């Protein structure tokens, strides 16, 4: 409801945002797709011309791709399981009548604000290092052989770091959702004779379902792109043991200078992300009726 003049003005006001985002979305993506069908290496300038599906066959056919795909799924899945279950638990705990709720919230949310490389380095040196990490000390105190986590369990170690970063996010969102549940509804359930477990399953969980969905979808988008944590800790190794798709593209394209193959990997990453995005958009879109 507005005049034609306002609507025209509105279009002008939106134009810069729409134009820059349009360019940002289309130009690089088209280039990636174009490169993915080219023979293009920064080291070997002789390699040129149309490559057909060769880059895709090379990337997807390589065992490192399968491993990176499995690692990506393990990383995303592992972190999601830890953060959703842990987040629900912590959110329920913080929602209880406790002393110092404000300070607790701040403590719990803090890891989310730690930049990824710092998070990775804190864990790498302060906790997981076999010589002077906290776990190393702990194992020694118990008379056990300290574990070199990044060498023996590289992917697991990365999952722990990433989960630590994202647990606060899940907790905060689930806590916000929990607190939007009206006290009256809880009291009504109590009056109806529901005990704590019944209340959790029949009142709290249905109310939280939407928030949990959103946590899962948004985290998935970010977790598919985990990069700095790997770069700083294992560098994708040993071998390809902790390389995910995002890091594989970086390794192939930037480190090995194979633009064609790197681009093919990039296109695959875009396709995977789009599948997740499709569901997220539907969940967010439902909320957009205004």
């Amino acid at each position: 409801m507005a005049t034609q003049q306002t609507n025209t003005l509105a279009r002008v006001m939106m134009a810069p945002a729409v134009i820059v985002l349009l360019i940002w979305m289309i130009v690089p993506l088209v280039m990636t797709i174009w490169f993915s069908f080219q023979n293009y290496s920064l080291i070997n300038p002789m390699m040129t011309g149309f490559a057909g599906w060769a880059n895709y066959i090379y990337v997807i056919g390589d065992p490192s791709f399968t491993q990176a795909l499995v690692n990506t799924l393990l990383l995303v899945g592992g972190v999601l399981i830890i953060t959703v279950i842990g987040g629900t638990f912590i959110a329920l705990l913080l929602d209880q009548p406790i002393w110092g709720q404000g300070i607790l919230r701040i403590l719990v949310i803090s890891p989310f604000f730690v930049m990824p490389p710092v998070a990775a380095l804190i864990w790498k040196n302060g906790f997981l290092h076999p010589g002077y990490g906290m776990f190393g000390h702990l194992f020694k105190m118990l008379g056990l052989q300290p574990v070199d986590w990044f060498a023996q369990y590289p992917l697991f170690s990365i999952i722990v770091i990433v989960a630590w970063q994202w647990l606060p996010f899940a907790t905060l969102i689930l806590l916000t959702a929990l607190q939007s549940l009206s006290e009256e509804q809880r009291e009504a359930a109590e009056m109806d004779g529901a005990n704590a477990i019944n209340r959790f399953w029949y009142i709290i969980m249905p109310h939280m379902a939407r928030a949990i969905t959103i946590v899962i979808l948004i985290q998935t988008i970010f977790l598919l792109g985990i990069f700095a944590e790997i770069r700083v800790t294992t560098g994708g190794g040993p071998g390809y043991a902790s390389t995910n798709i995002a890091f594989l593209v970086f390794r192939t394209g930037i480190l090995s200078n194979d633009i064609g193959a790197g681009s093919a990997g990039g296109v695959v990453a875009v396709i995977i992300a789009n599948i997740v995005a499709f569901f997220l958009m539907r969940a967010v879109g439902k909320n957009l009726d205004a």
Partner: protein
Amino acid sequence: MARKVSTQTRIGFTIGAWVVALLLFSPILWTALTAFKTEAEAIASPPTFWPQTFTLENFSAVQERSDYVKHAINSIIVALGSTLLGLAIGIPAAWAMAFAPTKRTKDVLMWMLSTKMMPAVGVLIPIYLIFRDLRLLDTVHGLTIIMTLINLPIIIWMLYTYFKEIPVDILEAARMDGAELWNEIVHVLVPMAIPGIASTLLLNVILAWNEAFWSITLTSGRAGTLTAFISSFSSPQGLFLAKLSAASLLAIAPILLMGWFSQKQLVRGLTFGAVK
């Protein structure tokens, strides 16, 4: 919170919650403490909790060796610059979508959101090549542009949800009072939306500050931000634990403070208004 519970239950929950919270916070606490220890004490076994000899030399060493201040300034320029640029583009766009919606507004919003879903690696290679050809690699302004683009959808979405809460009557009253568009936005909309705009600014500064993918891949020594700077410590380990902790503490402290203030808005911003 008017639930009545016994004091025992309350004590139990309180202890449980504090244990969990401190466990989650311990890596940060540990880093902060280690930053004030000497290198020898930092790797001593068994470890000490409180620094035995309280020292500030790690901080000065970090500055001397690797020019912490330069990277911090780069981070500030990129984070603030990209956020302000994003607000300049985002406020008019959010105004248009909130107050002059058309049938396509919802689609445009969803499409903007979808650009945020595009994985960075999908466009890393062309951006890298474009930056190389335009000599934008390792420049502060180049990184600022990228940061603006990746955070613009979040900025527009947050502003949109805040603007939606302002009754359109008030903007119409301004129009009736003789205000042209510029005055309507500057004298009425922006002052009314100041809390929302401030939250948007805060959250986006945080996100830009912590962004690691593009700053690591597109910068090195000259335009490196703190994320790139800290990443460069990944190789020399061992003896540097205390200095590394000092550098880490410096890098996260300002943003941690901002984050504590903006935690409520964080929810709205990162869920695109789906959870309030």
